[in-house]
């Protein structure tokens, strides 16, 4: 009886969750203009500084332990916010990539594909990095993260620029640059 009830509840939960999660995929696409306004500012340099091991070492050596722990927690909390913003921007840029994939020009399609690929990579890193940042918050001796996330974000930014550049010739606007 108990096992049957467990599976009945699991089935109902699966049904509700499937409908809830699928709803987003079935909705129509958005507006690029609206999406662009949803982008959040990310200072990659500041993020690199926050997760820098040498910076952390310097603070550890020059601050009293208690003060270091407080400042380290604040730095890691700021880094988490940066990662969240970068992941949010990545999801928006991936939609730009999706739009570029529908373009008639193969080079634009390729650039869009790369943008999506990097966006996915960045979101995957973000999922892995956020728990590590929280761990570092709790245990300041733990190394927070590598620079991969910053590099990937930088790559994505460059790909958006490439994508923009690639569109100009297709519209016969290269002379306008």
């Amino acid at each position, binding site marked *: 009886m108990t096992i*049957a009830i467990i*599976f009945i509840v699991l089935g109902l939960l699966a049904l509700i969750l499937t409908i809830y999660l*699928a709803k987003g995929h079935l909705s129509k696409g958005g507006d690029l203009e609206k999406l662009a306004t949803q*982008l959040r500012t990310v200072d990659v340099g500041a993020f690199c500084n926050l997760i820098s091991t040498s910076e952390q070492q310097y603070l550890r050596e020059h601050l009293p332990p208690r003060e270091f722990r407080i400042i380290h927690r604040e730095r890691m909390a700021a880094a988490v916010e940066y990662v969240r913003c970068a992941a949010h921007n990545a999801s928006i840029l991936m939609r730009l990539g999706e739009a570029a994939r529908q373009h008639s020009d193969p080079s634009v399609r390729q650039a869009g594909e790369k943008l999506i690929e990097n966006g996915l990579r960045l979101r*995957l890193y973000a999922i892995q990095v956020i728990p590590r940042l929280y761990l570092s918050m709790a245990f300041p001796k733990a190394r927070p993260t590598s620079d991969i996330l910053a590099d990937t974000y930088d790559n994505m930014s460059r790909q958006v620029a490439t994508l*923009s550049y690639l*569109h100009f010739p297709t519209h016969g606007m290269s002379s306008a640059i």
Partner: protein
Amino acid sequence: MCLVRRRLQRQLPIFVGYVVFELVQFAALFTVYLHSPFSPVIYKWTLVVGTGMGSVLELGVIYELANELLLSRSALASVLRPVLQVILALLVLGAAIGSGALSEISVQRVTNIFQVLDFSSNLIEAGMVLALFIFARALRVSWRSWIAGVAMGFGVSASIDLVSASLRAEWGYRAFIPADLTQMAGFHICVVIWLVSLYLADRTQLFPNEKLKISDLELWDQELQRMVQR
């Protein structure tokens, strides 16, 4: 017909094969049902073999959906493939435990096999579809609407079937007719979802403007400058 006419078999060939198989299975069961004298044993074995083959095809469709959604992307394949394998292994384990606990209620051997197959395949299917949707949401992977519709249809049908299979296992023959009706309703809902998503696939575009306009690109350029302050 709709699938083949739109050449969607190139995108999800196993799914199209599954739809054809369902039609063939229905024709076979209907023929056995109409045959005089009606043989319940032949009908049950046809149903069991059909359920077994259908379950294999359904797993194939889920692999196809996983491939289309996640595994075809090099950035994700190496990380998500082992995660999905672990989820599948856990679901198989759960199905084995559940089947062992629930199948004792059945008294007929053929019906017992049918129940085990039905319950296990639905548990695995519902779990895998849910896992795919969770990954897609976490990574913000865009799924073209008709593929999302196929996955949603499978998920809804498998979840309803899981509930009805559990009910049937728990209450035995008393629950057979209500459980069958629920399963049929679940399958019809699933087909309606597929048809609606196929219809929407023609109309829905990711963005209303097929080609990005120059003003959009300038806007993106500005946003990019704002976004990366180095």
